[in-house]
């Protein structure tokens, strides 16, 4: 479906300066974007989420959220920290980019080197991910990303890489692009946290070699006014494992897309998310998993708790290519509507061209279980607390997707504290 031609948009796109290959990659991305145009609400893929505020020339200003009443996320975990302030790398607030098992550079530094491993990856997985569904905002990102990191894991990373995104300017517009490559057998955990900017457009490309393990946990904080569109493009080789979990609480508009291409046999990809929405909140999880190899497994587990007119969207797809036999695909999307004003819109899709597969998807929407609430109340639990308990138990399946216990505990305790704040 052709989107609005770019020429119709009153915005000129300027490509940031980059080295030889960077400039070429950006030009190619701009050509892709020009060919498809920016999305508008008439596009089927944007049926439930209006992209206008994500595509406008300037972002809607977002008030700075004061989150100082709680400890920074992942503070207790020993990590290599990288900090971006309003989408710009801040060396002072970051650790030295040195760690056993990985090499880390700023995107701009990598682009200045004519010979660099990232040359063959930057924009490549994004390009692959443009078919069969177009993702113009990702192409826009590849064309205009101003900053980012490139991470090459050659072995087992000594500790997780934590990327913190701070928001200090009410009108900031961040375009970040990370490229991550894992060699055969390498293992890396990437943690992300923070609002980043008034508007964030982020792309993360992850290329996994054979038996490589990639673990990703992301939190999009409590700030109310920000907008974000994020894309993860991952390519999985034989026996590699990909796990990603995102926790979102508030944000006027969030669209998280995850596009995974399983190209090697016996690989697995798990994508999960939990979202708490209150009031003026629109949260969209869009997932597209392509099975193009034998005996692979994929899971999508997404849960949303919505109240005071919040909107949750889930668009998930499992595509099983011919010959991707023995595929095990699972997808669940569930919403708990805490009041009558909130809504959940879902499009869980299956497209299957191989016969020896087991694929299933489920989607449910409903209110909190009155019997369960009554049970807790009759045992002396206060109403708000009882509701929180039921919300936590509803979200448990998604949180259970986080393999690392320390990280899972961190997410769980943060969630509990957020719920308490909402109740009071």
């Amino acid at each position, binding site marked *: 479906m052709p989107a609005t031609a770019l020429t119709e948009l009153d915005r000129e796109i300027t490509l940031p300066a980059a080295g030889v290959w960077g400039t070429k990659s950006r030009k190619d991305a701009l050509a892709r974007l020009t060919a498809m145009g920016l999305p508008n609400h008439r596009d089927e893929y944007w049926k439930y989420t209006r992209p206008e505020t994500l595509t406008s020339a300037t972002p809607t200003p977002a008030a700075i959220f004061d989150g100082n009443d709680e400890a920074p996320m992942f503070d207790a975990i020993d990590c290599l920290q990288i900090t971006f302030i309003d989408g710009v790398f801040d060396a002072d607030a970051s650790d030295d980019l040195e760690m056993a098992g990985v090499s880390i550079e700023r995107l701009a530094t990598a682009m200045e080197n004519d010979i660099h491993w990232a040359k063959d990856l930057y924009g490549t997985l994004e390009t692959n991910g443009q078919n069969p569904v177009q993702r113009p905002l990702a192409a826009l990102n590849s064309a205009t990303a101003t900053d980012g990191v490139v991470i090459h894991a050659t072995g087992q990373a000594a500790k997780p890489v934590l990327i913190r995104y701070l928001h200090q300017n009410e009108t900031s517009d961040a375009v970040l692009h990370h490229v991550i490559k894992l060699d055969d057998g390498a293992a890396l955990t990437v943690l992300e946290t923070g609002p980043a900017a008034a508007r964030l457009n982020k792309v993360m490309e992850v290329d996994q070699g054979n038996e490589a393990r990639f673990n990703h946990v992301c939190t999009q904080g409590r700030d109310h006014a920000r907008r974000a569109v994020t894309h993860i493009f991952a390519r999985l080789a034989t026996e590699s494992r990909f796990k990603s979990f995102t926790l979102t609480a508030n944000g006027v508009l969030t669209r998280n897309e995850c596009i995974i291409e399983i190209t090697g046999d016996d690989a697995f990809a798990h994508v999960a998310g939990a979202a708490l929405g209150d009031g003026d909140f629109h949260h969209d999880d869009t997932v597209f998993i392509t099975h193009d190899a034998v005996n692979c497994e994929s899971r999508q587990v997404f849960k949303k708790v919505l109240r005071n007119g919040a909107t949750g969207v889930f668009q998930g797809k499992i595509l099983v290519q011919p010959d991707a036999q023995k595929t095990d695909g699972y997808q669940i999307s569930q919403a708990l509507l805490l009041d009558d004003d*909130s*809504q959940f819109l*879902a499009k*869980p*899709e*299956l497209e299957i061209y*191989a016969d020896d597969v087991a694929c299933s998807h489920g989607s449910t929407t409903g209110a909190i279980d009155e019997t369960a609430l009554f049970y807790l109340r009759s045992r002396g639990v206060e109403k708000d607390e009882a509701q929180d308990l039921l919300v936590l138990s509803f979200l448990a399946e998604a949180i259970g997707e986080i393999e690392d216990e320390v990280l899972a505990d961190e997410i769980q305790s943060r969630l509990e504290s957020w719920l308490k704040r909402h109740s009071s």
Partner: protein
Amino acid sequence: MSQVDEMIAKDGVEEETVEAVKSLAGAYKYGWNTDIEMEYAPKGLSTDIVRLISSKNDEPEWMLEWRLAAYERWLKLTEPDWAMVDYPEIDFQDQYYYARPKSMEVKPKSLDEVDPKLLETYKKLGIPLKEQALLAGVEAPEEERKVAVDAVFDSVSVGTTFKDELAKAGVIFCSISEAIKEHPELVRKYLGTVVPVSDNYYATLNSAVFSDGSFVYVPPGVRCPMELSTYFRINAENTGQFERTLIICDKEAYVSYLEGCTAPQRDIAQLHAAVVEIVIMEDAEVKYSTVQNWYPGDEDGKGGIYNFVTKRADCRGDRAKVMWTQVETGSAVTWKYPSCILRGDDSQGEFYSIAIANNMQQADTGTKMVHLGKNTKSRIVSKGISAGKAQNTYRGLVSMHPKAKNSRNYTQCDSLLIGDKCGAHTVPYIEVRNNSSRVEHEATTSKVDDDQLFYCRQRGMGEEEAVALVVNGFCKDVLQALPMEFAMEAQALVAISLEGSVG
């Protein structure tokens, strides 16, 4: 059974399979055509053709104006391309929009006057146009069951049976062309109110050029004394069939309606774009069952019917009920979404579907459940079976509006794949805009269970027979929802449609 053993077993039946595939051309039982003198409107589509169809049916002015407005609208629309079906561009000017047997020029007053050739056609199809009690091929149950039939041949209705007996009960059952003349007040009041003229490309086209179809009105409090049915037969070449069905079930009334369709085997694809509108008032109930068995094209995808159908039921009154049951085995391309508008409080909609696609067939079918009233309930059970190189898609919408408090939907859609060259897809849209409603959706895709096949084979069943049995088991939920007359036919159809698909 190991993979290797299975391969050998499959090699073992290859001979038979080849034979089965060869004989598949003969498997479509209704592929013959009736050699009868026809009268055609000139090829192509224009306001003149619209006027001609209207005049052939001797229609009043308002009907012609309605058609012309639809045609004007259609010219401004573009063909939808969102369905997962792929077919060559249709040249709407390269076909006939009106074809009727010459002998129907003067409408026969009774069935006795109908051309024997036509009567013979329906006899061969197993459709009784004599006012006999039963559809052929069904064993007589203890209690005699009657079925009234409206037979549509290309663009005209050949005749309607049991009209007098139905009239005694107050039920009007006739062709829509007759209804336009004899019951204009009813037709004008309801036509186009469920599927508006500009609803979609094919419905708009139908509004402009529909030539005939059936009309049913069941007055308040009447339980229709027998099942009603329409049998659609496309016979003429290069001719599109555009029928329009309008069913009105007044307060506390009940009717069960059956629809069947077949077409001759031809190399050139033919178009069928129908519209079915059902209006259901307070406490009324309508059951609408379809066995769609249009010619599916040959194993290379040559010929067949392009079936673009808009069917919708509007539960206008409180506690109104509608049940769609469909067995889709024919057509080269199917594009069909029988829907329920649950407007009245406590109204109910049900959709049971079996869609079988074999060889090069493509089916994109499903339903829409639009919950507007309070305490409305809907249930969707869809079974899709793909074999050969076919593509089968379930596409559906469940929408809970903010005012549809305490509503409920349950959706189950399962797909079965037979062979590794076919595809099965599920595209559900779920929109929930209040929190007192519950919506559940489940879907699975799997292949025919080897253990079940092995069990049947071990007990001496042929491979195809075993597959048919397993598939029948898979479809059980839907087959049980069919009226008895259709259940028998549907079970046999499941076996026929899958012939040649194993191996």
